[in-house]
């Protein structure tokens, strides 16, 4: 069965650079969630989209933005990167907003 696809798997950036993370949900899933998991931390909810509209907002910094496109894939845009942004970024998708299926994550390292 198809799963949530995230790209890239690994990303290395320097401070003050920008990064774009992509998420392709499971086919026919209309809801996408973004989570950030710092080293040794639990995943923290950033933002979610339902039918291409932002549906909920968590602890997402103002330097970050995200959107969901007409094909339901989502992109997380991160600007003015800081060392503290180094983390594993997970995307999850859902068709009923009850069960979330997670992708493999993008590991972002900011040097």
């Amino acid at each position, binding site marked *: 069965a198809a799963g949530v696809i995230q790209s890239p798997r690994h990303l290395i950036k320097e401070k003050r650079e920008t990064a774009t993370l992509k998420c392709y949900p499971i086919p026919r899933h209309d809801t996408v969630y973004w989570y950030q998991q710092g080293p040794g931390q*639990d995943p923290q*909810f950033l933002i979610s989209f339902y039918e291409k509209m932002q*549906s*909920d907002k968590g602890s997402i910094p103002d330097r970050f933005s995200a959107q969901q496109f007409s094909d339901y894939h989502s992109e997380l845009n991160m600007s003015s990167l800081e060392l503290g942004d180094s983390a594993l970024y997970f995307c999850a998708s859902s068709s009923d*907003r009850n*069960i*979330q*299926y997670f992708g493999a994550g993008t590991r972002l390292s900011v040097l």
Partner: protein
Amino acid sequence: AQSVSQHNHHVILSEAASLELGCNYSYGGTVNLFWYVQYPGQHLQLLLKYFSGDPLVKGIKGFEAEFIKSKFSFNLRKPSVQWSDTAEYFCAVKGTGANNLFFGTGTRLTVIP
């Protein structure tokens, strides 16, 4: 405020030992409860979930969890662990009308062969 507490940060067991991982939550309203497992270097995978009905739910790989509403708990159990169960286990809660999951801090399980 919503919160999820997992009291055991690291649990070490020998193979065939029984497992119980604690999870308590605080949430003002009806909740859906989940346990996710994260194997080393991998993504979060759903182990089991509780929405309503029988408070004892069974998941994959022989895991089960019991929802005790009066104690705001959703403890994960397995009668006999295997080396391959070595992973990080996250309890999560979601309000029935909400979108996002709130995760506990996770419990690292190490099973010694």
